[in-house]
Each structure stands twice: as structure tokens, then as C-alpha cells.
């Protein structure tokens, strides 16, 4: 991975798209130090992430995985409260936050709080995955192709959900996907990767109007034809 440089502003969503093997997940994982960089700097809130203890850094950054990866032996409530627990929030604050998040996800506590992940549908699980990532009110949320395993209807519902959350929470996020439509829909700005290189970055409009090369043009075009 070379020649990648970008900034995500507060309250903004940056979509990263690219073909498989383009390095988009790799790039995302360097942000919370699941992978480490060999060269270059990454700053979080003006501070080099290497200067922040890794555990502390990760607790400040939400992370939504491709599979929901909920802990199967924990109830929904326990899954959501993980990071606040780790951060040592008070019991009352945690309980309140869980209620609030389940409300936000339209999965009321009384119906879902004490259930286990295996009792939920794929879409419901991923909503809980998002709730878990948001639990400790992180300054940044990373999405790693969170909807790729879902059926088109559920995916579309969840995309709307993200738009709603952006609106409501002023969430700052980086959203990795291989779905151009999704990237353009959710991203305030879009970053296009190919084989480990950053090809173009800009608002969806800028990219659609001025693709920098044939690759971008074709990439956008094929997706829209489908």
C-alpha cells in the first residue's frame, strides 16, 4: 500500500471503495492499529496514533465488522455494553445507554435485551453490531463492509439506518465497501483504491462528473449498469 493520504473531517463519512484485493480493508485496519504501518503517519484528533496506547485508541474508535461477530455466549445487552464496561462507566449510565441504543436501532430492550445473537436475523445482528460500535460514543466509527453478507432488502434498510444515524448523531465514520452505489449513497466523500494505490478522492458528484481515468470511469459505469 503506497501513496495514500486523506483526511476525514468531523461529522463526515468517507467511503472507501475498490475491487477486491485493492487494500481497502487493510487500509481501514491500520486506523485502529489492528494492522500496523511500516511508513507514514496516521493522526487521530491531532495526535499520532502510535503515541496513544493501543487499547485506549481502540476503545475510542467504533468498529463494525463484515460478519457481525457478536459474542454468541452473551445477551444482546451484554454485547452492546462491552466497551462502556471496559471504560468503567457506571451501571446506571450503561443501562441507560443500552436502552437508548436499542431504541435508536428500533429494537426495544424489552423484546431484545435478554436474547442471544443466535436468536436474531442477519439484519438484526448487524444492527446490534452497529449499536455495539456506537455504545461508548466514539469519535470515529469504522465500517468494514458491514452489509456485504446481507440480502438486498435488508441491506437497503440498513443503509437508510446509517443515513439516519449520520443525521442524528453527527457521526464521523470511514465506510469500506465494494458496492459503488452504497459508497456514493453514504459517503460525503469517496476514496477510490486500486491495487494498493489511491486513484481518486472527492465528493460523489465530483467523481461522477470528472473521473480521473478510464479505470474510475469504467468502475463507476459497470456498477451503475447492474
Amino acid at each position, binding site marked *: 500500500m503506497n501513496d495514500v493520504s486523506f483526511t476525514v473531517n468531523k461529522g463526515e463519512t468517507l467511503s472507501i471503495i475498490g475491487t477486491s484485493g485493492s487494500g481497502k480493508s487493510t487500509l481501514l485496519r491500520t486506523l*485502529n492499529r*489492528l494492522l500496523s504501518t511500516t511508513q507514514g503517519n496516521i493522526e487521530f484528533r491531532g495526535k499520532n496514533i502510535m503515541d496513544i496506547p493501543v*487499547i*485506549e*485508541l*481502540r*476503545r475510542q474508535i467504533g*468498529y463494525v*465488522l463484515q*460478519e457481525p*461477530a*457478536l*459474542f*454468541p*455466549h*452473551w*445477551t444482546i445487552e451484554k454485547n452492546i455494553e*462491552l*466497551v462502556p464496561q*471496559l471504560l468503567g462507566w457506571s451501571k446506571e449510565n450503561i443501562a441507560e445507554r443500552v436502552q437508548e441504543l436499542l431504541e435508536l436501532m428500533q429494537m426495544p430492550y424489552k423484546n431484545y435485551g435478554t436474547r*442471544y*445473537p*443466535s*436468536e436474531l436475523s442477519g439484519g438484526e445482528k448487524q444492527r446490534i453490531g452497529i449499536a*455495539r460500535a456506537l455504545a461508548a460514543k466514539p469519535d470515529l466509527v469504522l465500517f468494514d463492509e458491514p452489509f456485504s453478507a446481507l440480502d438486498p432488502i435488508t441491506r437497503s434498510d440498513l443503509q437508510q439506518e446509517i443515513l439516519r444515524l449520520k443525521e442524528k448523531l453527527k457521526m464521523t465514520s470511514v465506510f469500506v465497501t465494494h458496492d459503488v452505489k452504497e459508497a456514493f449513497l453514504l459517503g460525503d466523500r469517496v476514496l477510490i483504491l486500486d491495487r494498493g494505490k489511491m486513484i481518486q478522492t472527492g465528493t460523489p458528484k465530483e467523481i461522477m462528473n470528472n473521473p480521473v481515468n478510464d479505470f474510475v470511469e469504467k468502475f463507476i459505469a459497470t456498477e451503475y449498469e447492474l
Partner: protein
Amino acid sequence: MNYKRSLSLLFLFMMFFGFSWSQDISIGSKTHPESLLLGEIMAQTIEQNTDLTVTRRFGLGGTLICFEALKTGEIDLYIEYTGTVLTAILKEKYEGQSPQEIYDYISKEVNRKFEFIAGKSLGFSNSYVLISEKKLNLNEISDLQGRTDLNLGFSNEFVKREDGFQGLNKFYNLQLSAPRGMEHGLAYKALQEGQIDVTDAYSTDGRLAEYDFQLIQDNKGFFPDYSAFPLIKKSTIEKHPELSDALNQLENILTAEKMQELNHRYEIDKEDISSIAFDFLSEQGIVSEKPGITTSNPIIRQTLEHIQLTFIATFLAILLAVPLAIFITYKKKTASWILSITGVIQTIPSLALLGFMIPLFGIGFTPALIALFLYALLPIVRNTYTGLLSTDPILIEAGQAMGMTQKQILLKVRLPLAMDMIMAGVRTALTINIGTATLAAFIGAGGLGESIITGITLNDNDMILRGAIPAAILALAADQGMALVEKAVRPKGVNKD
């Protein structure tokens, strides 16, 4: 579901603490019939002449095992023979001392070295004797001098022992050539059929009465005296002084002929050991009540001992095996090493492993516990290791990404998810141990193996089954009990078939 949980909790509780079981006086014996009979005679005497309760720990391997058991306090007393103490325990040479001199010497030495008290002699001596057909007119061992025409057939042990043929030949200057060694049990028959002319025997052997052989007198006194007497732990006598008075009634109560008759009733007529002892003691006016109701049922004691031994061993194995498995999950290089070592331990035959324990830990409960502990390691290490490795990697990544430390991921995610797998390992270990523990009786650890081993030495199938059936039931019950535990610890919300 709730009762199942409490059942499994109870089961775990039993496992963690085992049972304690104690009696006032514990009497041991070696495996040969005379030793068992005399043990029973002492038991009834004590039961009916004191308020003490008695535990019978009969059939403990050989001399050294009984002696070790007395040292460790596993038993309080057993019948020993003066000559055996002199040669086998004190490892001294017999140099023609009189029976009284031997007795005085060894009672002083066992008190000084081991804090044991030698009780009063029962009156008879069970020593090596040589026997022949009467028509050969061999009355004294001296008569054998130069008789190279005789066909000698001695037991294998006697041929080899320095206080057997080798020493005898020199001591009497018999000038005989090395005899044929043979199985002791066959010698009587061979002698009767004229295939051999002379063999060795024990003077009180019950089977001797079956035949009309000539006892060849040890006229120069080559064999030490083997007078039977109770060997007692000093601390036991100090605690229960009435024990001495009870046992003193047995002084000089038996002749070699009487002992031989009792042995015959037990070995050949297969009479019940407690009836033989009762008949004899009531004739002497020492006991009056027929025992049987008052004696505690050994099956219950043996079963409890069995449970205690196997459960504690398995519990201790968990304490080592689980941390070890966690360690090798993070140190892949040592994993194959640890798994191989525990695997090799598993392949050591049970009896051999128990044998290795004796020089290191003596006999009784502790060495058996350690051997069973070692056997339990492999299944638990292997299952824990496999269980931990089977954590879905994406869950580990999720944990990391949420900012969990490695320790938190282990304790909150990996271990809980592996718990039923770990318990399955414990279940295997426990079940194997219940089977293996039947061999622990060989080294005096008690348990259901006692009945099995005594049954084998006496060729008594009923007695073998009295040990084998409860052991089988125990294994099945433990297996089912652990299945409940396994279910109870299975993480909720995880679907497994």
C-alpha cells in the same frame, strides 16, 4: 433445568472436596491367606474387647507395602514375622540367634527406628521347612549331606535366596548341586507323584495337611525363627492403651498345627474368613458374639475411598492442566512438547506407573493420587487446548477491535466458549481414573480394587465382582454426572448439536 443445575453443582462439590472417612483402628494384612486370617482374628478381638471400631485393610501387596503403610499411618497394625523383620526390613543376616533373641532384638529396633511396637508373639512360627516322602527316611537336614542321588525341586524364590538353598547348602555342607526351580504350587503334586524327592514349604501351609509328607528338621538351626506377632504403630497404642490389653489375650494362642488347620479351612475348604476367626476365638473364650452385623460393610468404605481418590486426583489435574493448556495456546512451540509428554505419561502401563511411585512417595493414598493425577492430565490439556484454538478468529478480532486486552479476550470470550469442551476432557479423565484406580489397592490406597485383588489371590469370583460391579456403576454415574456438568457450563446462546 434448575434441579439439573443443582445436581451438577452438588456433583462438583463432591468432586472438589471428596469425602473424609475415618475409623479408630485400621488393620492391614498381606495378600497370603494366613495374613488375612490373622488380621481378621485381631479385628474381632479388638471389636469385642474394646469400644474401638475397626477398618479392615487386607491384602496389601507384600511385606514392604504393609510396612510402608504402617509408617505412613494408613494402617495401625498388621501381622508380621520376626525373621522377616530381621532379614527383609532391617536387612540383617541371621547368625544363629534364638527365637527369643531375634524377637527381643527386632522389637527394640523397630521401636528405635520406626516407633513401632512389637506385640506379644501369637505362639507359632511359620518358617521354611523342607519336606519329602516319608519312605525316604529323611528326618533332619543333615541327612541330606552328599545325597546327590536325590531329585531336588525347590520353589524359584528358594533357589535364588541367600537364606534359601544357597545358604543352606553351605551352612550344612550338603555338597549338593544346584536344584531345579519350579512353581511352588506344583511342587506338592510333583513330590507326591515321585517326580521330585525333596522340596521347600511354609510350615503352616494349609495344603500340607492334605498330604502325608515327612518334615525334615532344621536340626542345626539354619532358618531364622519366623514367629508371628502384631506390629503396631506406637502412636496408636498411646492413643488407645486398651488395644494392648485386647491383643495380649492372643499371646501364645496358636500352635503351628492349629494355624495350619485354620489355613486349610480357609484355603481348601473355602470357609468364610470371619466364621473361621470367630470359631477359633470363641473356643478360646475371647469373643462371644458372632460378627457380621457389627462390622462395617467394606463396599461402602471402598466406594467412598474410590470416589475420594479419583475426584481429588482429577480436580488437582484440572488445576494444572487448564493453565498449562492456556500457556501452550499462546506458546505454540511448547504445545507439541507438552502434548507429547502428557501423551507419553498416558501410555505408561498403570501398574508400572504405580510401581514407580513407591520409591518416590511410599505407598497408600498419596502415590496413588499422584499417579491418577498424571493420568488425568492428557485429556484435560488436550481438550482445553483444542477448545481454546477453536475460538472463531473473527471473535478474537472483534474483541481486539473493541479494545479488550489479551487477558480479557481469554477470560471473557475464549474460556467461556471452550468450557463445555474442557468439561468433556474432565469427564474422560474422571472416567478413566475410576477404572485405573482399581489398581491402586496394590499399593495400599484402598478403593474398590481391594475386593478385586483379594478376590484374585483367593480365586474368589464373588469377591472380584463385589469390587468390579460398584466400580463399573461408579464409572457410569460419573460419566452421566459429568454430562450434566458439561451441559450446565455450556454457554447459553451457543447452539451445538
